[in-house]
C-alpha cells in the first residue's frame, strides 16, 4: 500500500511537471506579454529595460529554467496585470473563496446524491424513481452556466431569496454552491442508483434478510457501502468537474475565487498568473485522485494495491 502511494505520488509529480511545461509553452505562444507591460509608444530603451527586468531577453529555454528554479523556491512570480502584487499573493487572497465554494458544493452533492440515489433504487419504478431519472438526465444536459443563471433567475430575481451575485455572508455562497454541485448530484445519483440496484440483488443481501437483519440496516449497512464503490470511481472525476465548474460558476456569480482570477488573467494575457493558477489546479487534481485511490482501498477490502 505504501509503495503504491509512493508510486502514485511520483506519477503525480511527473504529471504536474508536464502540465507546467505545457502551460509555460502555451503562455509564451499566447501573445507577447510586452503588449501588456508597455504602452504602445514605448521607446527602444524602455522595451529593452522591461525585457531585462522580466527576463524576456534571454532565450526561451533559459526562461524556462529560470521559471522552474523560481518555482522550486516557491516563487510563482510577479503578476503582470496586477501591479505590485505577486501571483502567490493573488492566489492566497482568492484560494479560500474557491475552497469554500468547492467544499460546500461537494458536501451538497454528497449529502443529496447518495441518499437520494439509494432511495430511488429502493423505490424503483415508482414516480419517485421517474423524477429522479429526469433530474439525472437533465443534470447531464444542462451546462453549468445555464444551471447557475436559471437558479439565479428563479431564487434571486423572482423569489428574492438570495442576492444575485458577489460575495459576503452565507447567503452569497448558497446559489453558486448549488449550481456547482448540481452536475455532480445528477451523475452521482445515477451511479448510486444503478450500483445499489445491483447490490440489492446479491446473495449476501438475501442472507442478511434471512438472518433477520432489519430492512434499514440491510440497506444502509450491507448495501450502501458496497454500492459506494462504483460512484467512488467517479469521485476522481469530481475534482475535474469542480475545477471546471468553479471557473464557470465564479464568473456567473462574480465570486472572487481562483476561477474568476484565471479568466481575468487570460483576458489580460497575464501568463504568470495563468501558469500559477493552472499549476495549482493541476496539483489539487492530482492530490484528489491519490486520495480517492486510498479511500477506495479502505471501502473495498478486496482491493490491495501492490
Amino acid at each position, binding site marked *: 500500500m505504501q509503495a503504491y502511494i509512493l508510486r502514485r505520488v511520483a506519477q503525480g509529480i511527473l504529471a504536474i511537471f508536464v502540465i507546467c511545461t505545457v502551460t509555460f509553452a502555451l503562455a509564451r505562444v*499566447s501573445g507577447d506579454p510586452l503588449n501588456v507591460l508597455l504602452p504602445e509608444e514605448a521607446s527602444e530603451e524602455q522595451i529593452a529595460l522591461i525585457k531585462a527586468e522580466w527576463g524576456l531577453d534571454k532565450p526561451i529555454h533559459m526562461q524556462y529554467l529560470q521559471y522552474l528554479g523560481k518555482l522550486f523556491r516557491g516563487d510563482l512570480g510577479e503578476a503582470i496585470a496586477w501591479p505590485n502584487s505577486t501571483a502567490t499573493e493573488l492566489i492566497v487572497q482568492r484560494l479560500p473563496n474557491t475552497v469554500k465554494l468547492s467544499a460546500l458544493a461537494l458536501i451538497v452533492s454528497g449529502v443529496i446524491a447518495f441518499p437520494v440515489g439509494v432511495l430511488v433504487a429502493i423505490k424503483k419504478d415508482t414516480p419517485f424513481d421517474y423524477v429522479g431519472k429526469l433530474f439525472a438526465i437533465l443534470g447531464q444536459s444542462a451546462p453549468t452556466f445555464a444551471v447557475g443563471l436559471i437558479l439565479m433567475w428563479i431564487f434571486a430575481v423572482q423569489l428574492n431569496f438570495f442576492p444575485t451575485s458577489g460575495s459576503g455572508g452565507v447567503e452569497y455562497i448558497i446559489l453558486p454552491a448549488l449550481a456547482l454541485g448540481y452536475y455532480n448530484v445528477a451523475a452521482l445519483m445515477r451511479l448510486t442508483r444503478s450500483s445499489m440496484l445491483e447490490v440489492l440483488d446479491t446473495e449476501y443481501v438475501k442472507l442478511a434478510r434471512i438472518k433477520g437483519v432489519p430492512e434499514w440496516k440491510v440497506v444502509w449497512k450491507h448495501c450502501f457501502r458496497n454500492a459506494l464503490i462504483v460512484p467512488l470511481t467517479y469521485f476522481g472525476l469530481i475534482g475535474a468537474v469542480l475545477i471546471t465548474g468553479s471557473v464557470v460558476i465564479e464568473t456567473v456569480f462574480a465570486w472572487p475565487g481562483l476561477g474568476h482570477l484565471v479568466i481575468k488573467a487570460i483576458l489580460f494575457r497575464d501568463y504568470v498568473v495563468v501558469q500559477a493558477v493552472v499549476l495549482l489546479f493541476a496539483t489539487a487534481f492530482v492530490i484528489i485522485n491519490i486520495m480517492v485511490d486510498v479511500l477506495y482501498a479502505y471501502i473495498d477490502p478486496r482491493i490491495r494495491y501492490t
Partner: protein
Amino acid sequence: MAAVTTSPEVTGVETQQRAGRIAKGYRAVRELPLIPLIILIFLLVIPAMFANQLAPHNQRIGVLDDAKLPPFWVSESFESRTVVQRADKDKLDVEIGLTNARRKVDRGEATILSGGEDGTVDPGDTLRFQANKGGSMEYPLGTDKQGRDILSRIMHGARISLMVSSLAILLGGGLGTILGMLAAYRGGKTDSIIMRIVDIKLAFPSILLALVLVAAIGAGFTTVIVVIAVLLWARYARVVRGEALSIKQQDFIDRARVSGASNVRIMMRHIFPNLVNTVVVLATLEVGHVIILESTLSFLGAGIPAPTPAWGVMVADGRDLITTAWWIFLFPCLAIVLTVLSMNLLGDWLRDKLDPKLRNV
C-alpha cells in the same frame, strides 16, 4: 397487405417474409425515440439549414428603438407615480422627480392622471406611464439590448452549434480513431506513447486546457473547433484502441495479412469497418458534450466572438440584464438544454441498439 397476398406471383414464403419486413419496419419506427428526434429536427436541424430563409429578422443588426422587447405573451404594463420636487432614492417606485416627469410628459411617454388641470406638471400630480413595453408577434421571443430578434438569433445559433459540433467531432473523432487504431495495430512503443499522452490529457480539467489554448491561439470560429477537437480525441483513442485490439485478434486479420495486404489496407479495409458502429455511437454521445463545451467557452468569452449569434454568446449578453429582461438569457439557455437533452437521449438509444458494451464508457 391485401394487395400483396392476392398478387399471384408472390409465393406464401415471400409474403411472409415481406410481412415480416413490414412488421419489423413498423416496430423499428415505433421504437425510435420520437420526442427527442422531433425536438432535434425542429430546434437544431431545420433552423440550422434554413436559418437565412426562416429567420424573420437580421441576426446581427437590431433596431435600437425595439431594444429589450419581451416575448409576445407578455403585455405592456403601466405604473403611476406621484410627482415630487426631487424623488427620494428609496422611493423610486412610487415617486418621480419633477424634471424627469416634465420630460416624460413632453415626449408623450406619460399622461397626467390627476392634477395638472393647468396643463403643466406640478409636484403632487400623479403620472401614469408605461413601465414595460409589451411583446408582439413581430419578435415572438423578444429582443435583446441591441434590439435584435432573439428567435432569429437562436436559429442562427443552431447553425453555429451544429457546425462547430460536427466539425469538431469529425476532426477530434477522426484524429482519435486514427491514433487509437495505430496504437492497437502497432502496439509496443507507439501504443505506450499514445496511451501515456491520452492519460495525461484525460487527467487535465478540460475547460482549463481549452481556456489556455484559446488564450494562446486567440478566440475565433476555427480556434473553437480545433480546441474542442483537442479535448475530444483522447476518449476516442482509448475506446477505439480497446475495440481494435479485440478485432486484431480475430482470424480474418491474419488471413488478410497472409494474403499480403498492406498495413494501411488492413487498417482501412478490415479493422475500420468493424469500428464504425462504435465510432458513430461515440460521436452521437459526444454531440451534447461538444455543444456544452462550445457554449461554455462562448459564454466565458473564449469561444465564438461576440457579434456572431452563438447560444453561449447570447446567454452572456443576457446575463447582465437578468433582473430586467429575463428572456434574453433564458431562451438561448433553454435551446441549449433541450438540444443537449434530446441529443443525449438519442445517443443512449443508438448505443443500446448498435453497441451496448459502450454503456460504461
